[in-house]
């Protein structure tokens, strides 16, 4: 009885001091994990809100432009050249194609890039200086004005 229980209690004592490093490592990890679970989710929500707002605002801007252009075409079908009308239609298709409810869809950046390109081409032809102030330009240098 004594022979078998002593080694056990000795083992237990030594075990806990030998595994001190491992125990504390685990404790620290668990603490950090739990903490970050909370703050990470919060941060993710903030980023999601911000990105969602920016994307939504830009898409809304394009929607508005397309709606005005379409109204103009309804009033006078000849107000724009056939090429411009076609481009507006293509832009509208792109807009409808944007996966608004699925942010993890990999095509989001491609569709957005195509949208921006079409928008610039249409504006250039119509000779209008419409500019969406939100999105980053490759030449941006803190020149955003409202």
């Amino acid at each position, binding site marked *: 009885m004594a022979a078998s229980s002593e080694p056990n209690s000795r083992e237990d004592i030594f075990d806990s001091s030998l595994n001190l490093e491992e125990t504390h490592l685990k404790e620290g990890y668990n603490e950090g994990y739990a903490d970050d679970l909370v703050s990470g989710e919060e941060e993710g929500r903030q980023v999601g809100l911000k990105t969602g707002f920016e994307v939504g605002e830009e898409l809304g801007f394009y929607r508005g432009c397309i709606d005005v252009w379409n109204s103009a075409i309804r009033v006078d079908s000849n107000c724009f050249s056939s090429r411009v009308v076609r481009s507006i239609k293509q832009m509208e298709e792109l807009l409808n194609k944007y996966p608004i409810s699925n942010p993890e869809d990999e095509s989001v950046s491609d569709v957005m890039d195509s949208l921006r390109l079409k928008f610039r081409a249409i504006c250039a032809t119509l000779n209008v200086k419409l500019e969406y102030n939100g999105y980053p330009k*490759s030449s941006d240098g803190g020149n955003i004005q409202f």
Partner: protein
Amino acid sequence: MSLVDESFELKELQVLEGHADRVWSVAWKPATGFDGVPAVLASCSGDKTVRVWEQSPSSGSFQCKAVLEETHTRTVRSCAWSPSGKLLATASFDATTAVWEHVGDDYECVSTLEGHENEVKSISWNASGSLLATCGRDKSVWIWEVLPGNEFECVSVLQGHTQDVKMVQWHPNMDILFSCSYDNTIKVWAEDGDDDWHCVQTLAEANNGHTSTVWALSFNATGDKMATCSDDLTLKIWGSDLLTIQSGNGSAPWKHICTLSGYHDRTIFSVHWSREGIIASGAADDAIRLFAEDGDG
């Protein structure tokens, strides 16, 4: 007798002074300089103006006939006459391309093409003068259609280059567009019917291409060969099958023919293939070299 056997000499005829800053580019006006029509030249400069020079039939010297100013707000980087000579397009660091028309004794800016986000580097008219291409530091190439009344419509905005696009050039007889860039590649763009332009070929390092910025490209008279020059100190000759190009269906792939190296020891900024088959190159080593093909190619 091939050109290689003759000896050529470049003789300076005149120095034209007038610009207040560096002159970036010059362009001869088409259909001038022969048959009694005095030669006309356009030059564009860092002084934000473009000057038009005309050769006097009696003295043979060039005089400045017009100064195109108060339009561009920054350096005018390059200029190109339309094939008919009626219009002059000027590309500027102010991100716009201006189109000028000769009206009476002066030139009037009849249209301004906006769209590039920053410096426009080069412009090119296609053979028929119906299309105008521009390219710039924003890495994009824009194609515009020329409509009656000097109206311009943007046909397409081409993305693909990953860096500053230095020059665009239309093929001399087909509506195929070539662009070269700081990204070391040359891209070939063709239309798939109905304004659908896309890149049909990229000539990169792997295709025996340049290993540094490609600054310029130029076609021979028949359009089946092309010369390119680069910061990698070489000139490269490329060729394609003429019949396939002209058939227009699918595009004829361009292949590397040869590389001319060891002639310049600084960046070669400019190359041009004359109608008679002489290739001229200009480089940062302050030298202009003339090349001709010898019998064996």
